[in-house]
């Protein structure tokens, strides 16, 4: 399949091999994936299935061994240089010597000030619910608040594509669920394409338009499931029969793929 330029992300036949001391490890095997503009796709799989590596390749933080990746029609490197990408890491990576506002402003500082089209950091702090914490330092914030600030920072250059690498993985269940609701609200407000990596099937189903299931050793895509749940999704969605049935389907497909592998 040839990647087409009007797709937000197009990955074709991508393979990633890591050279270890005495052998090579196939981290990703023949990955093909397309994400449409303004779609929210969740990559779900067990740890070690290479889902984070795939995200890092799309962000040009790693290079693929073979295969093609296009982000908004450009190579990851060009997309990165055009600053089309926002990345939210598992750790919030707030610089502790800067306050919240300065952390959110960091991308603007790095690119030499606020240009037309960049977001207003104050608006973003309002969007992520951090009004009043502009001058707090990272150690004064809870885990959820830190990740809110990290999301605001990732959005300040108005990226076309937001990549989130297990953004709430370090948070407790309750905070995590609240952050998922927040993320959906933010995503709906900003018209960005989002690719979220998670190891929680229910989180993936709750967030995404489409869930892509990966399997480990070698990392490959074993299933895709379209999530037809209506938006906006709320806490009630979690208890709906449709939600539970999609979670069950994805779970079944993940484990049947794992059985074939083992």
């Amino acid at each position, binding site marked *: 399949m040839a990647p087409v330029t009007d797709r937000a992300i197009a990955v074709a036949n991508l393979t990633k091999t890591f050279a270890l001391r005495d052998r090579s490890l196939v981290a990703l095997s023949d990955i093909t994936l397309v994400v449409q503009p303004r779609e929210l796709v969740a990559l779900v799989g067990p740890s070690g299935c290479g889902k984070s590596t795939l995200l890092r390749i799309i962000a040009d*933080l790693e290079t693929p061994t073979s295969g093609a990746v296009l982000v908004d029609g450009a190579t990851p490197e060009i997309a*990165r240089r055009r600053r089309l*990408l926002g*990345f939210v*890491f598992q*750790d919030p990576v707030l610089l*502790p010597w800067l306050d919240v506002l300065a952390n959110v402003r960091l991308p603007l500082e*790095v690119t030499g000030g606020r240009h037309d089209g960049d977001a207003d950091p104050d608006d973003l702090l309002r969007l992520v619910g951090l009004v009043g914490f502009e001058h707090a330092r990272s150690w004064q914030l809870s885990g959820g608040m830190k990740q809110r600030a990290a999301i605001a920072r990732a959005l300040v250059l108005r990226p076309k594509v937001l990549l989130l690498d297990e953004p709430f993985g370090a948070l407790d269940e309750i905070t995590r669920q609240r952050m998922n609701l927040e993320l959906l609200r933010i995503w709906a407000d900003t018209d960005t394409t989002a690719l979220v990596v998670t190891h929680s099937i229910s989180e993936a189903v709750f967030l995404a338009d489409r869930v892509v299931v990966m399997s480990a050793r070698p990392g490959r895509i074993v299933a895709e499931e379209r999530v037809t749940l209506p938006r906006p999704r709320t806490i009630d969605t979690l208890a709906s029969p449709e939600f539970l049935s999609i979670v069950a389907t994805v779970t079944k497909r993940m484990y049947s793929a794992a059985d074939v592998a083992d």
Partner: protein
Amino acid sequence: MRRRSVIETAVALVALVVVWEVVARLVGARFPVVPPPSEIAAATARSAYPIWLNLRLTLIEASIGLVAGSALGLLLAAAFVVWPRAEASLYNLVVTIHSIPLVAVAPILLIWFGVGITAPTIVAALACFFPMVVSATRGFRAASQSSLDLMRVLDAPSAQSFLRVRLPASLPFLIAALKIAAPAAVLGATVGEWLGTAGIGYLLFSSMANFQVALLWATMLIAASVAAIGYLAFAGVEHVLVDWHAHGSEA
């Protein structure tokens, strides 16, 4: 320091001086090696001007040594980080140089450069060099991989990434090195002056040779105070500049 601990420290110091005075006066005749504080104070006052002249010289040497030694250490650490191979081949050499006692280096430098400020300054610089190399090498690598990834996603030029991430992340290590280097510079300069003709080191030696015990103590206490002030100055800088470090590293 909190106000309460400042008061406690002051009270302890005063108590120490009082006890010292009383004990030294009681056993003074049989044990003249430790004069009472009042005699040390009197010797200080009596020789205030020569002490000041010698101290000034030592301060100049220590300051130049601190700046030069730390700067060289910083440069070498930067080279280690840019070319890891340089670290593999030079690190052991640096450790070897550091293991040569400064008292052994001082006479060689004195023969080499003659009497003057050069030899003590070099000894001071040597004393500062090693802590800076070790600390700065770690410091320049202290930035987390994810914070560097963040700068890469932003396509930050390497100068930006250095100024905004690597340098701030290294500051706690650089300041820690300076906290060690500042007193070490004073001690280094003093050792370098030992065989010279001026400076605190010389004053220590000459008052020992002339059995001016009170002056010897006065000089020693002044040298110790200056070293302590150097430490405290950088501890103050640390408190202001890297307040975030006390709260755990990057988060």
